[in-house]
């Protein structure tokens, strides 16, 4: 047992004395969360719009005001003609233009129908769609108000509730994703590199020619990264709760238990990689290429898996982080208990057991 603790302490020395490892270990998660939290967001806020108001009557002014007041839009200026709109689009200073024809209010009153032109920059189709939807919603609101004044005999009023994430924050979606990404990357990368480093430096040879059980070498290598990963997880969790206002509805214990499961799965994957390579560079490349891309693609936090073609949807099932992502979302955001996620947990347990089995099976007690 004393051997084991000495070995673990030695591993901690390695981690804390290597600036590159430290940076990777603690810089990467923080950078990821900041990147995904603030820079890479698919929410659309403060899009610049222009209004061309040929009518300039009470109705058009009221709608313009509503547009300006919404979070999504930032009214740039009121332009005088169509020609200016095109110039503004070309310069790329606006994303959307709203044009009120002359006699807008009187048309509305006299004919019960009036037209508004909405012009969007569709070079980014998703954004154009989202923006025109926002405009539609604002117009519907306005109509609703006017209809209420006149009292029609019947009407259908949709009552929309956004469950779990009423403010439609993107963070709720990707924080669990970033957690999965960071845990998988750090664990796979760090374990594989640290074991391969012993091989490269020749220390593995000395360790093998000692009474110390080779399997304990592996376990004592995994322990520091397990502890550090839990620390990282806590940092991400605190950051997302206090800086991004994410809820934490479920059980903290369950959350850490499930996270530990993913960490163990990732650690055994790292071990598997270290068994099949002898150079740190190769290990790093396999870990990065083999882990980062599938995790990004198939976890579901960047690209919805439901939208993928069948073969990719099938592939996504073998990515452990996909299941972890579902689990974390259920615990954190929805506040569900174990009964809701036992299936995903079981899959993750199965994967972990498989990886552990294969990597221990493949572990070499000799050099070649």
């Amino acid at each position: 047992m004393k051997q084991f603790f000495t070995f673990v302490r030695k591993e901690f020395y390695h981690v804390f004395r290597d600036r590159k490892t430290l940076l990777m270990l603690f810089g990467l998660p923080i950078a990821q969360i900041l990147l995904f939290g603030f820079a890479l967001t698919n929410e659309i806020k403060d899009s610049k719009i222009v209004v061309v108001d040929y009518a300039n009557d009470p109705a058009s002014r009221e709608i313009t005001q509503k547009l300006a007041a919404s979070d999504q839009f930032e009214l740039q200026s009121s332009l005088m003609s169509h020609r200016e709109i095109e110039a503004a689009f070309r310069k790329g200073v606006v994303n959307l233009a709203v044009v009120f024809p002359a006699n807008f209010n009187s048309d509305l009153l006299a004919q019960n129908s009036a037209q508004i032109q909405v012009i969007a920059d569709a070079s980014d189709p998703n954004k154009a769609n989202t923006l025109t939807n926002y405009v539609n919603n604002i117009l519907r609101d306005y109509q609703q108000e006017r209809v209420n004044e006149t009292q029609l005999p019947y009407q259908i009023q949709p009552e929309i509730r956004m469950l779990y994430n009423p403010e439609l924050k993107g963070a709720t979606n990707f924080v669990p994703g970033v957690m999965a990404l960071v845990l998988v990357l750090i664990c796979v990368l760090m374990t594989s590199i640290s074991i391969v480093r012993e091989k490269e430096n020749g220390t593995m040879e000395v360790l093998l020619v000692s009474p110390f059980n080779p399997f304990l070498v592996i376990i004592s290598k995994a322990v520091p990264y397990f502890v550090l990963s839990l620390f990282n997880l806590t940092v991400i969790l605190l950051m997302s709760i206090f800086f991004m206002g994410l809820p934490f509805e479920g059980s903290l214990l369950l959350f850490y238990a499930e996270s530990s499961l993913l960490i163990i799965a990732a650690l055994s994957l790292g071990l598997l990689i270290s068994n099949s390579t002898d150079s740190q560079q190769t290990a790093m490349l396999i870990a990065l290429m083999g882990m980062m891309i599938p995790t990004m693609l198939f976890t579901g936090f960047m690209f919805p898996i439901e939208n993928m073609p069948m073969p990719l949807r099938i592939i996504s099932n073998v990515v452990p982080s996909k299941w972890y992502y579902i689990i974390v979302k259920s615990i954190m955001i929805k506040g569900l208990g174990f009964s809701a996620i036992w299936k995903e947990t079981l899959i993750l347990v199965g994967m972990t057991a498989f990886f552990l089995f294969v990597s221990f099976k493949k572990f070499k007690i000799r050099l070649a």
Partner: protein
Amino acid sequence: MVTLENISKTYNEGALTAVDKVSFEVKKGELFGLIGPDGAGKTSIFRMLTTVLLPDGGNASVNGLDVVTGYKEIRKQVGYMPGKFSLYQDLTVEENLNFFATLFNTTVKENYDLIKEIYVQIEPFKTRKAGKLSGGMKQKLALCCALIHRPTVLFLDEPTTGVDTVSRKEFWDMLKRLKVQGITILVSTPYMDEATLCERIALIQSGKIMSIDTPAAIIKAYPEPLFAVKSEKMSVLLQDLRKQESVKSCFAFGEYHHLTFQENSPEVQPSLRKNLEKLGHAAIELKEITPTIEDCFIQLMNH
């Protein structure tokens, strides 16, 4: 006590034979040297004996334990210092030593008497990272780490490669003192001049043992008289000597050329001297010498 019987090792699925049916025996408490150039198979033999490499054929045992089946026991009993410096460069001298002591279920205190003489030399640097030590210091630290659990057999794979002459001499002095403690030492080296420091040596070349004996006996077994020649123009002299009919073999050796004659009659020496003078060589020095291990090695290699 180490025995090898027809041990073989091949790489690349048999395409490359690194060790070819090697047999020898190292007695208890002996300082045994495995002498040969790079690529002769020394490291492969060491790795098979320390159980980190499986032999492809033959049997070997350390302390009576088979290297394949008894690997767990062997790993507890032997000390191994691989050719490449294999300690943790980012740990200090002290941390390295403590780590290896704990790894072998012992403490530095317990076996301090064994390493004391070596350790006092590096003790002033005990808080320095191992990676920042000089080559000689690194070797001393590695030796301390290999000795800390009082092994019965010590395997040292090229311990003096890349170490300066003074440190090399110190290192061999340390080995002699360890031998007094009753530790069996198996050491490999590419430096022929270190061979005479061993009690018995095996000369190895291309995976084959060419000769095993005490250094003195190997020198004694040199089959013919050996001469050293010197003149003012050494490179021309070598070419001229090789053209002489009476000369059997000739090769450059430090400041002399070493040569043997086809026939060793009393008149060969004066006639060679005459021939060389005719070819314009001045200040010719020609004398019979005792062969060195390197001479023996070259002679055996060419045979």
